[in-house]
């Protein structure tokens, strides 16, 4: 099953899976979204988009569309 960050509920964690690198923009990797890292969904914006996450020590807001490209295994 393809679960991505976009499927998390607020407060839930996941671990980023080994993903096909082509689909992920370089910037996201550079901001710390790397395979094997823990992701926590901190908040969802009032209109369900963007998502506010913590990954690898960084606090980031990303759009749902981008989040759905980052596949995870739920903890």
């Amino acid at each position: 099953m393809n679960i991505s960050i976009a499927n998390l509920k607020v407060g839930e964690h996941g671990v980023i899976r080994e993903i096909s690198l082509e689909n992920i923009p370089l910037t996201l990797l550079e901001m710390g979204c790397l395979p094997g890292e823990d992701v926590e969904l901190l908040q969802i914006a009032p209109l369900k988009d963007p998502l506010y996450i913590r990954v690898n020590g960084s606090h980031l807001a990303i759009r749902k569309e981008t989040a759905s490209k980052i596949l995870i295994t739920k903890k």
Partner: protein
Amino acid sequence: MSNNKAIKVALIGNPNTGKTSLFNQLTGLNQKVGNYPGITVDKKTGISQLSANLTASIIDLPGTYSINPTTLDENIVLKTLLNTSHTDFPDVIVVVADIENIKRNLLLFSQIKDLQIPTILALNMADQMDKKGIKIDIDLLKKELKSEVVLISARKKQGIEALKKAIVNYDKFNLDALANISDRIDADYFRSIKQNFPDFPLYKSWLYITQVEDFAGLTDGQKKQIKVYKKDKEKVKKYQHKETIFRYQQINNILKKTYRIDRSQGTDLRSKLDKVLTHKIWGYVIFALILMVIFQSIFDWASAPMDLIDQFFANFSAKAKDILPPGKFTSLITEGIIPGIGGVVIFIPQIAILFLFVAVLEETGYMSRVVFLMDKIMRRFGMSGKSVVPLISGTACAIPAIMAARNISGWKERLITILVVPFTTCSARLPVYAIIIALIIPQQRVFGIFGLQGLALLALYFVGFASSLLSGYLLNHILKVKGSSLFVIEMPNYKLPSLKNIFYTVIEKTKAFIYGAGKIILAISIVLWFLASSGPQQFEDAENGFKIKVGNTSLNSKQYSEQLASYRLEQSYIGIMGKAIEPVIKPLGYDWKIGIALISSFAAREVFVGTLATIYSVGNDDENNTTIKQRMAAEINPKTGKPLFNFPVGMSLLVFYAFAMQCVSTLAIVKRETNSWIWPILQLFGMGTLAYIASFLTYTLLS
């Protein structure tokens, strides 16, 4: 070392790391803001005395998370560092990093270090270490990073001297690359790159290959070779990803040995504030309240200094007229240059106050929450959450607002933001709105508290915002512009704003406005002066012509000179232009005099009022209390015999000023920012057509 040697030091770092605080500490008031050639990004440089015989020119490069740029601002970092003959190419780089977010900050450091330019790591906010539960082994970190590492606290002025001392020894730094990318990714591939560019650090050649844009600093032969490597896009992208992962692995290994942080400490405040500030109801309520406070302050606080400035330049002009001998030159100074400068200075209070608020909101970390809250809404209108800052800034002046759009990474979102910002009600529209509202809206109160005139002004603000959003919506569907937009923003920690940083930001933005818009406003003012103060033969004979026209009507000397001035304006080039466009503007309810005011509004909209004052021959003194408002109210339409500025004409003018693109400075900035004439021309004609049609409908329906 010779006496008073000067070196160049570049500050590089992630946004929100206190890089600007460090810059302010190092340079104090010895700083200046200029522009990078050809673009409008502020370039901040300053002088710092490092030791008795070494001074440094410090360059504050735009904040960036990576050496690979995603916005125009970030582009500058790479542009400066790749080209050894760039005027700002540094002798030393100081990478400023937030000690709490050290991992991501070290990614940038490791990229910079591999360019093999002397580099120091300055770990900022060291005073927070205990509070945040951070422990760090500096000596081991130095060894692992093969670099100088200095702990500083820029806000508390700690470690600044140690940093200066470290910079002084820059020629003894270890220049080895940190990440050995070639072995870990594809040894053969990178060996071939090294062979082709033996004089370059390997990472430098690799950066030339990985960037979409072609960066300067290469010979023609090298350019050809880079092109060959660039062709295999898939491979380049794959290796770039691998490189990043490898760098993080290396950083993780180093940090495991040298760095401990207790994550449970000090995250409470952040999550509590986030819960309220990004709450689905409270978040918007708080944002709305903050906006109200900002607008209120812009009006209240700015009105007194603006009146003073207005008064000052009027007196100055009058004094100059008395002292200087009469003639063309005096007229140029007193009617062209002095009012032209005044027309620039008068905007400073509002712009300074607006940027005071914007700087506070950004410094505290609140602005990122606004971006988070507004992104989905703004996207419906073709923009991004980051467009909120430009749209708010637009209520002071479109010029700094359009420049603020630079950090929007998606080209389409940025372009739409730039195109729609001029709809927001800028401060130059206010004097026009004020006088027309005073003329046509009665001074009544509704429900006992709201003044009708105030409500009319509020409605005009609403029209401004609504039209920028609606046109954004339309442009989003019409414009076929390529380019995906990646939206990744950092949500920084909440901080108390530093007064020093805010002070410098306000000064810097205000200066940028004066130099950006000021020159154009001044130039246009002089052109308009020329058009209004010269003309064909009849203009030169105006005095005689006027005597014939007046005939035997008895006028006192004041009335005589006022009406003469009005008559002369009619015969001037601008008068002729006003008459020429009269047939076009007649359907909107305007006569040629309003036409003159419309033309002169191209310097800055508020010139409208001053021009009408001249046309309706109002003297400088209000002794007999004939203010411009009364003169305008008394103006009679010769056809109908009724007041010219009746309700339909006034409404039509308000609508026209709300929509029309009457600002040459804005057009010039849009040209520079989009690097094309297409977009400013589209704005000019698009907004002009809209204004014309809307005013026509308003006038026709109301009369």
